[in-house]
């Protein structure tokens, strides 16, 4: 049967993807020409970007370790993107070998790649889902087969919510997720903000608007609302580099102005 030409195509690698651009910022090669072009343009406009991403990764690592210290060893990483060196499961397992991790992304290539990477690992899972449908996400067998949602889970929303437009009601989506977690669960969250570098924020968002993942930077109060009903762990919502920096971290990081980070706990 001849395929009607009015059925749309599925995968388009000529359109930049946030996940692959992120990989490029971190020096990876899990990317295509279009991703590299877009990312290079972004860096040209905002040379600190790779460092911002690095700071974001570093926050994630510190937060994951802290979660394990608090006894939370189940991780649900939404917007996990392309897994690179020092991923959540590596960090978590280094702290507690029994840690379980489920990666979630809506980018089918990122998901396929992660699945190839983690094939055969029964304590990890990778699913393609959209955080805007929290109920379907949490009921996905790929999640429930790996995580016990009756017990506390660390929900990672690291550098992902700024890819959800206001029109898609990210606060409602996060509230849905928060509501379904067991008490003692953690929300590990970082989010781009125009505060600090308002000069960069505009052009940067313009650039992402041309990708498959337009970007919405948000203010402190807007980001704070994602934690509604959760107790903020010390030091609260701060610039990424300021969240529980490792002792002896002597360098003042230039990227501290680019994003907020925080961890909250469900009472």
């Amino acid at each position: 049967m001849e395929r009607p030409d009015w059925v749309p195509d599925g995968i388009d690698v000529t359109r930049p993807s946030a996940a692959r651009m992120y990989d490029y910022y971190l020096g990876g090669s899990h990317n295509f020409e279009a991703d590299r072009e877009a990312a290079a343009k972004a860096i040209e406009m905002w040379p600190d970007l790779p460092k911002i991403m690095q700071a974001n990764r570093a926050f994630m690592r510190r937060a994951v370790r802290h979660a394990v210290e608090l006894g939370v060893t189940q991780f649900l990483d939404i917007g996990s993107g392309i897994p690179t060196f020092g991923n959540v499961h590596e960090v978590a397992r280094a702290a507690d070998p029994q840690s379980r991790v489920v990666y979630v992304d809506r980018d089918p290539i990122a998901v396929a790649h992660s699945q190839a990477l983690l094939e055969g690992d029964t304590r990890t899972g990778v699913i393609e889902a959209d955080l805007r449908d929290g109920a379907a996400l949490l009921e996905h067998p790929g999640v429930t087969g790996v995580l016990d949602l009756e017990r506390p889970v660390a929900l990672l929303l690291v550098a992902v919510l700024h890819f959800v437009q206001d029109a898609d009601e990210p606060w409602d989506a996060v509230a849905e997720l928060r509501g379904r977690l067991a008490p003692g669960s953690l929300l590990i969250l970082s989010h781009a903000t125009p505060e600090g570098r308002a000069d960069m924020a505009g052009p940067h968002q313009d650039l992402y608007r041309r990708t498959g993942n337009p970007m919405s930077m948000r203010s402190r109060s807007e980001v704070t609302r994602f934690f509604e009903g959760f107790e903020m762990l010390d030091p609260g919502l701060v610039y990424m580099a300021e969240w529980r920096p490792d002792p002896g971290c002597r360098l003042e990081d230039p990227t501290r102005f680019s994003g907020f980070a925080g961890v909250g706990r469900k009472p």
Partner: protein
Amino acid sequence: MTRSPAAPAGTGTAGASGRPDAPGPDDPVPDAPAAPAGGPRAHEQEGLARFAGFWARVIYPFTATSMTRDELERHLLPLATRLRSLLDEDLLDASPAQEVGRGLVQAHCTDPQVLAQSLTVIEACLLLYRPASPDIPSDVVRSRLSRLQAAVAAGFARALRDRTRHEQEAITRAALTAHQRSQRALHESEAKFRALFEGLAVGIGVGDLQGRIVDVNDALVSMFDSTPEDMRKMRVDDLVHPDDLPGVWDLYQQLIRGERDRFVMEKPYFRSDGSVLWTDLRVSLIRDEEGRPQYQVAMLEDVTERKQINDRLRHQATHDPLTGLGNRVLFLERLEEVFAHEGGGRRVGVCYLDLDGFKAVNDSLGHATGDRLLVAVAERLTGCLRGPHQSVARMGGDEFTALVVDPAGPHEVTELARRFLAALAAPVHIDGRDLSVNVSIGVVESSTDGTTAARMVQSADISLYRAKARGGNCYAMHDPEADAREMSRYHLSTRMPEALESGEFFLEYQPMVSLADGSLKGVEALVRWRHPEHGVLGPDRFVPLAEETGLIVPLGRWVLEQACSQARRWQREFPDCAPRVNVNLSVHQVRSPGLVQDVARVLKNCELEPGALQLEVTESAVVGADDQALTALRELTDMGVGLALDDFGTGYSNFAGLRRLPVQTLKIDRSFISGLRGAEGGDPRDEQVLAGVLSLARTLELAVTVEGVETEEQAERLRSLSVQSAQGWHFARPGPADAITRALRG
């Protein structure tokens, strides 16, 4: 890639690529040559640790690793140790130093600047932190260092190349997997869609915005009795059908413009053989991700058979099976349609037709002939129509209606009525007989404003009665006043049978007295109707109606019975002076075949001798009466019943004819005495005429009673003319039987 490193505030150690070996002011390292305490081994280790710390600090800004700088430092220490140990060996092959380069890449330090900075740090500081053995000549050390640096660079490059290849392969494979999955999902959904598309009994067609038909399923193809190829050659505009509902193509255009997302309607199409295909059509618009119209999808359900059945059922429900004309339902529907027209102000004409004498044909020749006559009439009526705005329907029995929508004026409707009359003027030939059939027609023409369909039909019906009342074979135009009169006549005549049943009729009696002595000679029974709404009605109001409807026969019989039994009661009470009773016979009764038996039976039942009864007939009832009627009258007089000729002088008073009649009494109409005004007044000729009539009556040996005597002068004149008896208000008004009884007792 050009990554211009930012100069981190407060670091300044190794910010710019140009001076990696230029330690910043806060750099604690370059006092390395100072020998630490703790023995030579510890001293070496400490030196290497400080080197690794310096190395990490220099390259960290160029890395994207998620390690902290301390972690990176711990990662670099074994690399530094390895490098330093190689420096002490006499290596022909420096390749083991490649591991150091590979180690950098493994720590995710993939930026070429990391290599450049690392080589510079090794070149400038390795020996500084950890001096070479004094046994080895310095030029040899330098040479070894150079070879080691080259190997580090090669190892870095190879590891980076391998890693890049690996990652490119991995991501490409992932893209391929994702693509395959999406294709599979697409294929599955498409296969499902195709299965649906092909398997559904509903016809589906996909068209583009230019109206080209892009795809059709089997069901649609077979519905059109066509081929997929032929159908794909068609355009949506080829699907116009003359019976398309108005507005369907406007809806289509709105859909194509994206102003609506779907529409549903019943639509006919031509099949390839030209026959009609009726469908329930549902058209939906398919939009792209941005909401722009892309395609139109039409779903068609074949309802041809259902529609044909519906049409047939509807035809049956709205047509008269005998004549094929529309029936009452269809006529009223069409009329209501005109009234339902938005904005009103339309005109409409209605003819209500009723065949004169059809019942007689049916009764005498049978229903089969009656039916054939109706069919012939229907054909003739149909032949009178001029255009689709005129129609004829059969309302039932021998009643038909004609409807004229938007007539040019009242004349168009009356002209149609005239054509109907003319069309039925010639007899209808059935089974060798020529059957004459006439028609009476009520005609209404009016605006739809201020009236209703029902009222209009009623008006036509009333006008029809007026046409009937005029003798039929004519039309009567609607006239509100005449119709109101007709209306009340109509109501009276329809209520009369019930009134007779429920005893609303009663009799009054008017005395006839002897002019000589004033004694009571007889009484005339007069019928009255005590109508519940209109009060007491005289015979002039309802007897003509009863004549028309035929109810006069039972009514007359009832009057006869009442009057005879009253006469008998008087005879019993007053055996010597009981009055004779006069009862009027209508034209209908005189000609009714059962008259003689009726009278005989009543007399017998009442035990009344015939001589106590006198029947009054009018001139018109006997003039022109056939032999049968005259025979009946003769039989009655032979029986002993008296017979009076009523209202003498109002007809044409055929004196010659009087001789043939078995009449004993003349009742002279009041008109002869209205001129008698005493001795001095009045027209002397009236008195002469009256004298002549009286003389004639004497000649024919007829008794005379003069009616309508109102004054003593009139009575006096009549006495002077030797009239024997008289009747009138001067003597007594009509009254109840009791009044007569009292007078007899008195």
